[in-house]
């Protein structure tokens, strides 16, 4: 009461009421009872009050439309626990409002139907829904099921741990010991969802076609295939939980509030050059040193200890390109002519299925200068057939490619991968 008298003024009273009703609720799991209010301020004083309201961080309000001018409605997302306080505040100050969304959870339930539909946990990889995007747990379960169903052909190797201690899982497809190998990775940039989704499809394709498709069977009888589907699991989890547009790893950077390193600028090939950034707050931040990211180091260690990888394909999206080294220098790769011709062939195979137009060439000429990229490093390790894909589309949906394009994308890309694998097998080195 004493406090109230001391700060008496209609504006401050309103604020104090709010502060008095402080409830800190974090880490909430549902949006039940949350509402979205549309507020109509009738004068500048009310706008001022609303601006003050927006500064009360403990209420957890999210202004979808900020208070700007009394002629423009103000939309605010109000978590359930703050509803009472906000309503009191508005009524006390005679600010008009109406309820735009009665219950946010209802809305979210509608939105989530895409994934809820498939929430019945698949009992086998034949049950698995390839036409939808999945979260990390589902994908890891898929891997375990695939191994269990095809234990003569597939095994799972854990090549390391992500920064947040998630396992870095690689599927190994092998029909014999001491074979040379072929590597594919998807999802090194977490927001490129069509790549992880395609990786899942490739895994199933391999087990389906072995013993049925003569070309693949011949490849697998001579080479092992390694497939890392979620190459950046921390980033991937983050795209599901917080920011769909997250690209990098999730490792904090000392001396900066910005998180993450671009795992495709962190490799020791032209590391530190102009085609990468030294600023931790940027999407192409190279990291404090080459191979500083555990996600990258794990692959580096694997490649070096394997010693006999003959093809390495790193898969990204978007822009529909097939690219070969280099990204860090305009000096042509020693094997450029062969790599260019193989790219031409692979793209021609790809296009034959759905007429999807691809361009191809070296990274630096076709897309942009990029330093410290995966395939420059693998190429310099002696893995001649080092390629980077950029899958669909060319910018219409970009990273948010509709799920109904997953299978067409995976199918056409597979034809290109087969062309690369076949060429590798027919040209041993």
């Amino acid at each position, binding site marked *: *009461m004493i406090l109230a008298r001391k700060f008496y003024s209609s504006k401050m009273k309103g604020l104090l*009421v709010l502060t008095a009703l402080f409830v800190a609720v974090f880490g909430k799991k549902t949006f039940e009872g949350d509402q979205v209010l549309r507020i109509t301020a009738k004068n500048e004083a009310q706008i001022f009050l609303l601006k003050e309201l927006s500064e009360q961080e403990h209420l957890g309000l999210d202004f979808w*439309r900020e208070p700007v001018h009394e002629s423009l409605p103000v939309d605010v997302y109000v978590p359930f626990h703050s509803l009472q306080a906000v309503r009191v505040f508005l009524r006390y100050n005679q600010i008009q409002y109406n309820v735009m969304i009665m219950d946010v959870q209802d809305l979210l339930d509608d939105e989530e139907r*895409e994934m809820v539909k498939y929430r019945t946990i698949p009992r086998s990889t034949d049950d698995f829904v390839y036409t939808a995007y999945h979260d990390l747990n589902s994908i890891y379960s898929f891997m375990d099921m695939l191994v269990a169903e095809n234990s003569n052909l597939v095994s799972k190797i854990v090549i390391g741990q992500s920064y947040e201690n998630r396992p870095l899982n690689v599927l190994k497809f092998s029909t014999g010991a001491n074979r040379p190998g072929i590597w594919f990775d998807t999802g090194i940039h977490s927001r490129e969802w069509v790549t992880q989704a395609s990786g899942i499809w490739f895994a199933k394709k391999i087990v389906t076609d072995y013993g049925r498709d003569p070309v693949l069977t011949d490849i697998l009888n001579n080479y092992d295939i390694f497939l890392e589907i979620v190459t950046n699991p921390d980033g991937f989890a983050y795209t599901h939980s917080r920011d769909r547009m997250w690209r990098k790893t999730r490792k904090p950077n000392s001396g900066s509030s910005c998180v993450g390193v671009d795992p495709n600028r962190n490799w020791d090939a032209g590391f530190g050059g102009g085609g990468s950034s030294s600023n931790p707050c940027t999407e*192409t931040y190279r990291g404090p040193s080459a191979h500083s990211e555990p996600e990258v180091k794990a692959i580096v260690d694997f490649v070096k200890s394997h010693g006999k990888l003959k093809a390495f394909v790193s898969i990204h999206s978007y822009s529909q390109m097939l690219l070969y080294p280099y990204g860090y220098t305009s000096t042509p790769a020693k094997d450029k002519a062969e790599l260019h011709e193989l790219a031409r062939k692979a793209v021609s195979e790809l296009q034959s299925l759905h007429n999807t137009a691809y361009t191809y060439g070296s990274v630096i000429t076709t897309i942009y200068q990029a330093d410290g990229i995966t395939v420059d490093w693998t190429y310099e390790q002696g893995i001649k057939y080092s390629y980077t894909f950029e899958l669909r589309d060319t910018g219409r949906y970009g*990273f948010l490619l509709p799920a109904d394009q997953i299978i067409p994308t995976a199918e056409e890309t597979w034809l290109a991968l087969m062309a690369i694998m076949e060429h590798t097998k027919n040209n041993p080195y």
Partner: protein
Amino acid sequence: MKTFCSVWLLLSLVELSPAPPASQEPPLACTGAPDPAPPQPETAEDMASTGDLEPTHYPARRAAQVALHYLNTHHGSPFRVFGLQQVHKASAEDVAAGGRKYKLDFSVTDWGSGSAGPALRCSADVLFPRTERHSAPKVELHCEALQQINSTAQEDDAFYQKYISPDSTVSARDIPDSFGNMSEEMQPFWRLARVAASFIMLRESSENTEFNMAKVASITQQESSEEQLMLEFVVLLHDFPSQEIVQWKLLASWSPDRGVRVLQTEWQPRCPHATKPPN
């Protein structure tokens, strides 16, 4: 006073719970602006990028994308948005006043008519000025048969009539959603956002950028003014060379007669990356 007391009573009934670990909750407001994304340096090929250009390489493609944004600002509508299909020929030359002019021969398709749409052949001159502070590229564009492609006047009018009514208060977020889904109803709004965003993408473009619209974060219909649909958009743009996602809020008007006009634009910092646009 009375209200205050009763509210104070309410407070005593309310439970408090602990704050989250700082690492899990991004700041509600970003403190301090980090350095903007450094501009892309010129590569050896940039230096040599005069004369005939390889049409599938990025210098030609970036210039064509600028021409595309220009095309959309002039001819885009709720039922027509163009996408770049292919660059056929390209060349570049340095110009006397300082700057580089690209001559392009390329094809576009209308995303509004689905994948069955015919390709439209265009030619353009795109001039990137070389000034100390960024200034927008200048475009001269000619597309053959632009007048002959199927008119969308009927759909435009129906859409206009539906939403110009004073009761209309369209409001939506995340178009498309994380899975690429977009309702039928939202598609014309997405296209309008894309067209409006093209004004910004055109203005912000340089030889070192390549913009697409990644997503519409929100659409809020404003009160119609002068018989124009008034829409406030928050759009996320994606720049290829820097890979940055850049957020812009804009206010646009549209009617079948006047087309799209952008009235206000405001760059919005995105936490935790508060990166300014590349230029």
